[in-house]
Structure formats: structure tokens, C-alpha cells
């Protein structure tokens, strides 16, 4: 067993992930999700906002993390639109605005066609500078984002009336794949604006780093695809009720079956590996 070719393990993992996807594609069934407190806190923070509130949403990811974060972005945008809140989208990652445009096209332009760009939502694009951008928008938002993505000055956008700094938004959401992302938003924006509510949707790799900020500096958190699935289920239950949810709003839950079987395989391998290690150790101890 110690000489087992690792490629057999890769093949087993591929099957453990691929077969549930095919099963889900054929049956359309997903596992039920029960929200954990960090995901529930995200949902509650958005529910608590009055209609018409403006929400700063930062798309801090690129296609490499889309598998985990795009379902979160979709659910956040759907929830904001349903509550008639107004997302002001920015990005600290160069490909963030493109991901934001995809989400806007998929959610707002398709299912909420009455919402007007510049009045009900806006994409202000990417600004380079990482935490430097966050430091500046803490005092002067328009200095970093003077125009929207199409070049229209923010002074002419009704959605930006009265917004001078990040603290003017009652809620900030970052969908973050790494640096700069959730940690930097906590360090440079949340800490210097005590009244501001910050939510973060983060990748699995980032989750354990950001968890220590919850629930003090971070009001709510979606940790990896599991958090995305929980939040997606909450939003679907609130919006769709007993109706069938559109497939594009079940993406995170569809990815939970591969998670289950992938994790089961991994746990089995860890247990098997340890059992064999101790068995071999005992054999060596017994052998003359």
C-alpha cells in the first residue's frame, strides 16, 4: 500500500467529484442546507436595511476563484435587488469589474430589468493601489472613483448623491479571493468606521484567516462554497418560497454534493493511511 501510485487517488477524487455533478445534472436534486450563524448574519444584515439604502459591493476576485465566489456574488446581488437596495460596485482586483458585469447581466438585467444604471446600481470599476485605495476611500471616495466604468463622472450619478466616503454606506460587502480582500477591508475600513457593517464572502483558503474577525469587526461571513450554499438557500427561501428556484440561483447548492463525496474520500484516505501507519509500526515492533 505504501507504494500506491498517487494517480489512483487523483482518479478516485475525480470520480468522487464528477459523478455527483452528473447525478445532480440528471436528477436536479440538491442537499438541504441549514444556515450557520455567520451566513445567517449576512442575511439578517441585508434584511435589516431600509429600502433604497446604498450598499458598497467590492468584487475582489478573478476567474480563478469563480467556482467558489460567483455563487455568492449572484446571491448577494439577487438579495439586494429583491430588497430594493442599491449596490455601488467597485473592485480591487483588475478582473473584478468583468465579474461584476457578468453578475449584473445575469441578475439585474435579466430578472430586474426595471432597475436603472446610475440610479439603482452602478459599476465604478477597478482602481489599482490595494490597501491604498481603501485608505483613501475612507476619507474621500470620489478621489479614487471619480467616474463609473463607462466614464460618466460620479457627480452626475443619482446613486452617488451624498456619498463622500466609505463610511457613508450603511453596509459594505466584499467578495474576496485573497489579497487585497476581506482582511484588508477589516483593517482599513471596518476598524476606522465603527458604525459600518461589513460582510465578507471569502474563499476556503481565506476563511480561517478571516474567521477571527467575526462577529466583531466582521458582522457576517460566507465561508467558501458551504457558506455560499447556506446563504443561497436563505435567499431562495425568502424570495421563492415554495416556488421552484431558477437553476442559476442554485449553483452553490449544486456544488455541495461533490463536496460531500470529495470530503468522504479524503477522510477515508486519512483514516486508512493512519491505520496502515500504526499497523506497520506495530509489525516492526513485533518483528525480531
Amino acid at each position: 500500500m505504501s507504494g500506491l501510485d498517487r494517480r489512483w487517488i487523483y482518479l478516485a477524487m475525480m470520480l468522487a467529484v464528477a459523478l455527483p455533478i452528473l447525478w445532480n445534472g440528471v436528477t436536479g436534486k440538491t442537499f438541504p442546507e441549514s444556515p450557520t450563524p455567520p451566513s445567517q448574519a449576512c442575511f439578517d444584515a441585508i434584511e435589516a436595511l431600509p429600502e433604497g439604502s446604498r450598499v458598497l459591493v467590492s468584487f475582489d476576485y478573478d476567474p480563478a476563484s469563480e467556482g467558489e465566489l460567483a455563487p455568492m456574488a449572484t446571491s448577494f446581488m439577487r438579495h439586494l435587488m429583491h430588497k430594493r437596495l442599491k449596490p455601488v460596485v467597485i473592485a480591487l482586483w483588475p478582473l473584478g469589474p468583468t465579474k461584476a458585469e457578468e453578475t449584473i447581466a445575469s441578475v439585474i438585467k435579466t430578472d430586474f430589468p426595471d432597475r436603472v444604471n446610475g440610479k439603482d446600481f452602478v459599476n465604478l470599476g477597478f482602481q489599482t493601489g490595494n490597501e491604498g485605495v481603501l485608505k483613501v476611500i475612507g476619507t474621500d471616495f470620489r478621489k479614487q472613483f471619480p467616474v463609473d466604468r463607462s466614464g460618466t463622472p460620479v457627480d452626475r450619478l443619482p446613486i452617488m448623491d451624498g456619498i463622500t466616503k466609505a463610511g457613508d454606506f450603511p453596509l459594505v460587502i466584499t467578495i474576496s479571493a485573497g489579497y487585497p480582500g476581506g482582511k484588508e477591508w477589516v483593517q482599513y475600513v471596518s476598524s476606522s468606521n465603527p458604525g459600518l457593517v461589513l460582510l465578507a464572502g471569502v474563499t476556503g483558503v481565506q476563511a480561517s484567516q478571516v474567521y477571527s474577525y467575526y462577529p466583531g469587526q466582521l458582522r457576517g461571513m460566507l465561508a467558501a462554497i458551504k457558506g455560499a450554499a447556506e446563504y443561497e438557500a436563505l435567499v431562495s427561501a425568502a424570495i421563492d418560497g415554495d416556488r421552484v428556484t431558477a437553476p442559476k440561483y442554485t449553483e452553490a447548492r449544486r456544488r455541495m454534493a461533490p463536496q460531500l463525496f470529495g470530503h468522504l474520500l479524503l477522510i477515508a484516505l486519512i483514516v486508512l493511511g493512519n491505520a496502515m501507519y500504526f499497523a506497520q509500526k506495530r509489525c516492526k515492533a513485533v518483528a525480531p
Partner: protein
Amino acid sequence: MSDAITDQTAPAQGRWWIGLFLVIAVLVAIRAGMGEGMGRVYVQTETTRYASTTNEQGRVAWSAAADGTAGAVTIERDLFRTAGQFRAAESAAPGQQAIRVSWDRTIGLWLAAFFTLAVFSFLAGDNPAYKLTESIVIGVSAGYWMVVAFWETLVPKLLANLAPDMVKAWCMPNLEGGAFNPIALIPLGLGIMLLSQLTPLGRHVGRWPLAFVIGTFAGLKMVSHVESDIIEQVRATMLPLVAFEDDGSFAAWASIRNVLIIVGVLCTLAYFVFSVEHKGAVGRAARVGVWFLMITFGSAFGFTVMGRIALLAARFEFLFIDWLWLIDPKGERAMAVVAAATQLVP
């Protein structure tokens, strides 16, 4: 799966893997020829005419214009359509050209599938397909970053301050302000000094802007770290050991959680106190601290596994849904479902 499969049998395994890939290639070829086929991207061209107006402040605005408007320009853009929408259109009007196959995007889809499989092939061993894919990813990323840095930083933040009139006439018609800003000469000078790192004689000159960058970030990070990672985190551990609900009743789980947090923090800190020998009470606390650290590492590993499986699942979904058309969870290839969706797509 047996112990017999070892590195000594590598040539046999190589042949086995090549055989497996050939089988997959044959299956893909069969799939391509079956039923409605696979891996095609459909588009519909939208044509819009735009006319520009300039207000008193010199701002240029573009808006949709009617046919025949003087000076208007025509913009064509392809909107994605699904296979179901294509089939519905064909069913209504056979031979229609409104929704059609986009060959360039279809080639892009097949290239994406090829690159995905090439990356997967690394699991079987390093090979030219993987190396090619890796090089393309690095090259495209570097090129993209260069373009972004030029248009998002150099043009609006440097050139627009040094030569505003030129930039306004060239690429930013809505540029506001318009006065030469001498402060921008400082980053320009520092940037040129930084480039001197590339020449053997000018390396010492390049250290000045580096010192500026390091000093600025050190100051910026020090303040934020002290505030958010020390003061706020210390505050977050100042918890009541006996917690109560809002109605005054005893909160058992909250109390246990608080005790665990406080014990965990103190014991973990005890492990990192190296000026005291880890014996007696300190030693026991440090050993408990190691357990907390192990649980933390285990949790981080679990989250990492979750993230990686999610990414793998997303690639498989791309292969099965977009490329092979094996499954259709979004109902994009079903005519009945698409009929209503067609109305909503802009």
C-alpha cells in the same frame, strides 16, 4: 488498485495513461457526432446607433440615436444566446440567421476545454500540453496586467496630471480639472528611478523609490495592524465567563464558547512564551495550546480542501455542461424553458 503499481512499473503506467486518454478522446469524438452535438456557442448581433453631444462644460455624452441621425456611429455587439434559443428560432423560421453559431467563440470554448484537460494531465505527469498551457496562462496574465496598469494607472493618474489637454483629446474626453499638476512629477521621477534597477550601474538609484514604497507601506500597515489585529482582537477576547441571555437567563452555550475562547487564547500564547521553560503549569498550558493550534491547522486544511474541490467541481461543470453538453441543469438547451427566458435577455 494494488501494491504492485509502483515507480518500477512506470513505463507500463505511462502506456496505461496514454490508453486512457485515447479512450477519452474516442468518447469525445463519439459524443460530438451524437444527437444535437456539443460545444457550440450561439450569438445574436445587436445593432445600436449612438450620437455624441457636448455640453457647456465640454463634457461629451453618448446616447442612443435614431436611424439617419447625422454623425451617429453604429455599434454592433454579439449577445450570447443558448442552444435552446437557437433551436426555438430554427423551429419558428428554419434557416434563420438572427441567432447563429459564433465560430470564434466556439473555438475559444474548445480551447478552454483543451487547456482544462491539459492542466488535469499534469496529474499523470509533466508533459508538453501542460507546459504550453502554463506558459500561455503566465503570458496572458502578464499582458493583461500591463494593459491594466497602463490604462488604469499611468494614463489617468500620471499622464492626465502632466498633460491633461493631450489626454483629454486622446482618450479621456470627460477628464475634469485640466490643469498641469507638478506634484505628479514626483511619482514620475520615482518611477524612472525604479526602472534604473534594470541597469547594472543604476541599482543604487533604484533603492530610493523602493525605500519610499517600503516606508509608506510599513507606516500604513503598522497603524492598521495595531488597531484591527491587536487592540480589536484583544477586545474580542474580553468576554464574560458566565454569559446571560437578554431576558436574564443563563446562557450555557455562550458561556462554554467564551470559556473555550479565553482558554484557547491563553494556552496558545503560553506555547509561544519561550523565555519560561515549558514545565509544570506552563508546560501543561502549552500542551493544551498545541491542541488548539492543531485544531486551527486542521480547520484551515479542511477549508482549503473545500475550496479546491469547489474549483474542481466548477471545471467539471464547464466540461460537462458547456463543452460536452452531457447535462443541462440550467435548462439552456431545452426549447420549452428557453421560450420565456428569451423575453428577458436584453
